[in-house]
């Protein structure tokens, strides 16, 4: 049985990535706002409150989370390139998802942010040079180092991962 938490599987970084792979990842980030709109445009208040698994987030929380998460990610890219060994700050994404604006049925402001952010983010990613893709930041929770290359790959997965959650919520029509 598919794990309802990971409809497309967990993230795996392919260390032998080629330039073609990088372009595929960036294209996924680029097309995310449109793919998101195709899924959520015109949904009713009832539908945006459908959850994607038992005890999981609702569609609206997934959308607001993508706005939070992708902005945080973009800030991390900038920190990594402007500070030596930048130590990034994890955040409690579950608590962010419980803030009252993350529970708003109106998705339009978050979608506007995602659309604007992704346009800027993709433009930024496409001009990175090879040595910049190798720049790493430090994740304090597991004291691991993450290269910008791996982080691009992660967020391409993150886009697909959450779109699959929304699709799953829609397919199941809130039965959880």
């Amino acid at each position: 049985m598919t794990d309802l938490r990971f409809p497309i599987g967990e993230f795996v970084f392919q260390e032998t990535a080629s330039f073609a792979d990088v372009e595929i990842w960036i294209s996924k980030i680029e097309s995310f706002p449109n793919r998101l709109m195709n899924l959520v445009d015109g949904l009713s208040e009832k539908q945006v409150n459908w959850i994607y698994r038992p005890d999981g987030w609702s569609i609206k929380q997934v959308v607001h989370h993508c706005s939070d998460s992708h902005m945080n990610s973009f800030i991390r890219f900038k920190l990594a390139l402007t500070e030596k060994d930048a130590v990034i700050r994890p955040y409690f994404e579950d608590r962010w998802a419980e803030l009252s604006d993350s529970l708003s049925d109106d998705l339009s402001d978050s979608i506007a942010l995602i659309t604007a952010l992704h346009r800027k983010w993709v433009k930024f990613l496409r001009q990175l040079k090879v040595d910049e893709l190798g720049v790493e930041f430090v994740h304090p929770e597991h004291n691991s180092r993450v290269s910008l290359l791996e982080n691009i790959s992660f967020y391409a997965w993150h886009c697909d991962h959450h779109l699959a959650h929304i699709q799953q919520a829609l397919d199941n029509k809130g039965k959880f």
Partner: protein
Amino acid sequence: MNPLVESLQKTLEAYLPLFDLPDEELSFGYREGGWNVRQILHHMADSESVLYYRIRRVLCEDNQVIWGFDQDAWVEKMDQKHLDLSLNKELFHANRLLIIDLIKRYYSSSSERSFVHSETGLRTLKDEFDKVGSHAESHLQQIYLALKNKIND
């Protein structure tokens, strides 16, 4: 209405058309060696994104330490080099609407929450909310000054 919300709506309207100024005017500085209008506008998109993210962080975690960022490097080494100003116009606009919404929801109820800023020390959330307004206002005055003084570096 909360005067801060009113002020942020007003400065939003004042800022948006500035992103569409002709290149020549965007290149004017307000003083020798200071940022030009283009740099200030790129900085506004950066800084308000970071302010928004900080405020959410403080709302969700007690006694946060918040770190500053290298504002000059973000503008001078990054956005200004490769980024069309229209992209930051769109982001500034979307982010500002989210901040206004957040203020309406949390300004009165959570303004006493405190945190430590790595450069400026102990602060409350009210300080940080108010800073969004005063920061936008002071850079707006710099832009008006630049358009008047027309300093070309």
